[in-house]
């Protein structure tokens, strides 16, 4: 084992971690907002909204992220009305395209996860809230939202780990995050194993930390479910 090389590789790769994290946090944030919108449409009574949401979820969950990313990155620039619009300075940037396609894709998966959470809210709880006069936004904010979110958390943390891994695809649209830098190092040095181990360690640590944080959140959100410790 060549420790000098591993140390150098680690240093180069760690410099790319902020880019991976930026992709991750931005796409989780925007994807989450979009997912809320989609899930609202998905459970709406209006058949147009409902079918639009169904179609959205089907398309974005059924096709590979890479093709969606290429569609955004190469496909949008093809149209004059986009290239001459005020959006072009943003959509020209590979980083923006990567975040956009990651967010669009995760919104499809997250909407289904949130819907699963909504279905886990028991009808009795909603009836109880209605019977004391809660309705509309208050009902969602106080009763449905928190309960659904807590039920959705385990599946959502899986989706979040998937998103950490999905940020790797941004390297294929020339955003230099950890996997892209690792690939460049591999093709420069041909020392596949060492570079892979370093990059894998970074991703595993990231995922471990994120899962740990999610477990902590879940623990804190389900305080009322644990037995109260008896006083001596």
């Amino acid at each position, binding site marked *: 084992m060549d420790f000098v090389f591993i140390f150098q590789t680690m240093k180069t790769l760690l410099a790319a971690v902020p880019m991976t994290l930026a992709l991750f946090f931005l796409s989780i944030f925007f994807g989450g907002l979009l997912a809320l919108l989609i899930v609202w449409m998905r459970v709406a009574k209006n058949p147009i909204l409902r079918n639009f949401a169904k179609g959205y979820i*089907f*398309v974005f969950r*059924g*096709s*590979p*992220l*890479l*093709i*969606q990313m*290429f*569609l955004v990155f*190469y*496909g*949008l*620039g*093809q*149209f004059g009305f986009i290239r001459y619009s005020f959006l072009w300075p943003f959509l020209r940037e590979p980083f923006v395209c990567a975040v956009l396609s990651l967010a669009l894709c995760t919104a499809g998966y997250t909407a289904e996860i949130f819907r699963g959470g909504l279905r886990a809210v028991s009808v009795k709880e909603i009836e109880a809230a209605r019977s004391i006069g809660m309705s509309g936004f208050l009902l969602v904010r106080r009763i449905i939202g928190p309960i659904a979110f807590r039920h959705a958390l385990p599946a959502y943390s899986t989706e979040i*780990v998937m998103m*950490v*891994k*999905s*940020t*790797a*695809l941004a*390297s*294929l649209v020339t955003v230099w995050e950890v*996997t892209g830098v*690792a*690939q460049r190092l*591999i*093709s420069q040095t*041909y020392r*596949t*194993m060492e570079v*892979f181990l370093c*990059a*894998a360690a970074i*991703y*595993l640590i990231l*995922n*471990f930390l994120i899962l740990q944080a999610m477990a902590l959140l879940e623990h804190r959100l389900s305080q009322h479910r644990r037995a109260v410790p008896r006083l001596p």
Partner: protein
Amino acid sequence: MWIIEVLGFGQQGWGGLLIAGALMTLCVTIVALLLGAVLGTMVAWAKLSGNRVLSALGNTYTTVFRGVPELLIIYLIYFGGSGAVTAIGRYLGYEGFLGLPSFAAGALAVGIISGAYQAEVYRGAFLAIPKGELEAAEAIGMHRGLRFRRIIAPQVLRFAIPGIGNVWQLSLKDSALVSVTGLADLMRTSQVAAGSTRQYFLFFIAGGCLYLVLTSLSDRLFNRAERRANRSMPSSLGHA
């Protein structure tokens, strides 16, 4: 009309190549799923064995290959595999670079990833078998091989179908990443077609639609398999 021409099957059309690419994607995924089934069974067995070393190995396998980006694993297998093949070639007296064929590298990489997910599916399915059935089999004197064949395998397969369906969908989408090794799968073909006609939007939409056809058809297939496997259990919960 030009759309029909570029997407059609004529001289200027890319339709035939796109279909061929879709078939290639299907081939890679099927080989990967079979490879993953073998690996997954072994890893699940290692994790359930109760032996500390074996279960630690199994846990490492599933953690690493589920926690690291698929693209990185494809790079590892493609570049690392080519390095290994070259080293073996040199040992046998062949000078120069030998590459791992991109189909083999892609199927191996996707198979290894799929194996990690399948291991968890099989482990969960095994744990879903009521303990009493295993004890009953032991009590009437079945030995391990027979118990595996008559009691464990049929039930694990039945419980595992929904999970395998999910893994299949994952692998189908992971197989798009194999295009970075230059394999002419659906992703790569749409990319080449888009690049040479400058019709990026059209060809990525067409490629995406073919992926949707593949995922929705296979979804239907797995639902049917699930219904068929559960036909003797009319009252089971969560049926397809």
